[in-house]
């Protein structure tokens, strides 16, 4: 400690003190408060061949007289974050730049206080992107509401639903539906409920059992409601069997084993896998394939898509799965949002093309527009 004091005194005597020059302290931007960033610019600090290697950072409040050491950083680091500050209290920082020979330069910052921010400016690009998405989607929903007809290309996987349910009717066998491992928070599960509703309407009309084994109790409760509503809508609430939509287990492979068992025992003519799937996808799809069922799958899990493609008759890939609700219900508002989705895809395509060209010609700044803080 005495050595340090001696060094400081000598430094004070021998070297010019440059208070505030080259160093500054600011309230850390885009954070939830209690943080101050201390910045020093090695190029602006006259080192006088001291070969500065490290910086000791000290602080005190405006009312205190003694300095408190809060950390040490390499000279080349340029910044130090004091994340133990109290919001609203003014702090002054003192930086002791120490060289290889032990000599030090002392700098002080102006008083600064930390505060929490209301908006993260580093995410403004995301906000703009979301606003554009919302605007485009709402615009097409509005046009659709005004009576504009939008064309939706035929999706073989969804066209086949009717055929698959018809086949089950001919064979007098049930339809098995699985929403995979997703819980109700997942958008894929919400989309799955829409497909389930359409399938349930068909099974209600044809009077064939719809089996829906599930691995999430909330999804089971929602599915029971959706299926009952579909049965009631077609005028056959009496055909609804609550016991056919049941909860199995939370365990991934326990679920796979149980669904495989149901497939082998009840031999459904049609298997529909719509939702979020993990490693159980192939176990289910291959078992379904072995019993000769028509299988249609749709998922947002890209890794599982390849498994479904080899084991199922039809697969809804990517956005096709999310288009299912509009396609099956023909609801103009949902169809409008599908058109909006297509327009956004064009926008994304153009941006990818521009990005590829910009990077090819060395304009890497284009990429910074899309970085998220």
């Amino acid at each position: 400690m005495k050595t340090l004091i001696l060094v400081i005194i000598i430094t004070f005597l021998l070297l010019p003190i440059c208070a505030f020059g080259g160093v500054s302290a600011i309230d850390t931007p885009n954070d939830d408060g209690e943080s101050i960033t201390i910045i020093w610019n090695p190029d602006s600090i006259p080192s006088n061949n001291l070969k500065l290697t490290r910086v000791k950072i000290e602080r005190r409040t405006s009312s205190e007289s003694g300095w408190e050491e809060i950390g040490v950083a390499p000279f080349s680091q340029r910044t130090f974050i004091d994340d133990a500050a109290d919001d609203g209290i003014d702090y002054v920082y003192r930086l002791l730049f120490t060289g290889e020979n032990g000599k030090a330069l002392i700098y002080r910052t102006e008083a600064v206080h930390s505060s929490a921010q209301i908006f993260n400016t580093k995410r403004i690009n995301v906000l703009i992107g979301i606003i554009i998405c919302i605007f485009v989607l709402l615009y097409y929903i509005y046009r659709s509401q005004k009576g504009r007809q939008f064309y939706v290309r035929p999706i073989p996987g969804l066209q086949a639903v009717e055929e698959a349910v018809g086949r089950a009717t001919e064979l007098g066998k049930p339809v098995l539906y699985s929403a995979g491992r997703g819980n109700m928070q997942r958008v894929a599960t919400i989309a799955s409920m829409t497909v389930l509703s359409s399938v349930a309407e068909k099974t209600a009309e044809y009077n064939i059992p719809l089996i829906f084994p599930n691995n999430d109790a909330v999804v089971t409760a929602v599915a029971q409601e959706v299926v009952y509503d579909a049965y009631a809508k077609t005028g056959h609430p009496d055909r609804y069997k609550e016991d056919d939509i049941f909860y199995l287990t939370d365990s991934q492979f326990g679920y796979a084993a149980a669904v495989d068992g149901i497939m082998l025992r009840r031999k459904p003519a049609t298997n529909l896998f719509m939702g979020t799937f993990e490693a159980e996808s192939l176990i289910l799809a291959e078992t379904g394939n072995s019993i000769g069922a028509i299988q249609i799958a749709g998922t947002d899990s890209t890794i599982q898509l390849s498994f479904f493609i080899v084991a199922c008759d039809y697969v809804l890939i990517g956005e096709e799965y999310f288009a299912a609700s509009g396609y099956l219900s023909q609801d103009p508002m949902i169809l409008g949002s599908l058109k909006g989705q297509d327009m956004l895809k064009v926008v994304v395509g153009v941006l990818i093309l521009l990005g590829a060209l910009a990077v090819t010609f060395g304009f890497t700044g284009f990429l910074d527009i899309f970085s998220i803080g």
Partner: protein
Amino acid sequence: MLRKLPLYICFVFGTFMLAQFFIPHPVSTALYKMVLDWVQIIYALSLLVGAAMLIKHHTLIASKPVAKDRQYSLIVLFGIFIMIITGLFFGRGNKTVFLWIFNNIQAPMQATMFSLLSFFVASAAYRGFRARNAQSVFLLGAAIIVMLGKVPIGDMITPYIPQSADWLLNVPSMAARRGIYIGIALGTIATSLRVILGIERTYLGGK
């Protein structure tokens, strides 16, 4: 009102979850954490609901003397009963019956199901890679290169095989995957917006 209330709740929470991504303020963070805590509480309660559903479903089947799959339901009920009794009265720590059953019955059964995957992959790969047309031949060729590139023998034959495998995975395969990702992302945004605005309401049990 009963139908509209969930839509209002959905709108408020959906908008908040979107807005909190841009607001670093502690109030926003605290609210976000609180919502996540609620989700955990709902999940914990749903487990109880699930257990009740499971017991009800299998009791119904087991109580029918002529039910075809009665024995399976009896085994499920027996398993639930045993685990509850051992867990409640004999503890769940080390060297307990509960843990012994878990480690020696449930875990091996789950591992068995997982290991079946390798056989299913083999049978699916056989079907997928059959050279029926030009596209299948192309797929088969790419698969052979990737498989050889990921095992030591590929490098021993020629170093070009692992390089080609990496190129196949990182360029054409990645391009296709990213295309699908973009579609899924846009689909997710559109579906979320429909849910937040109450356009998509099938999940409530009605259109």
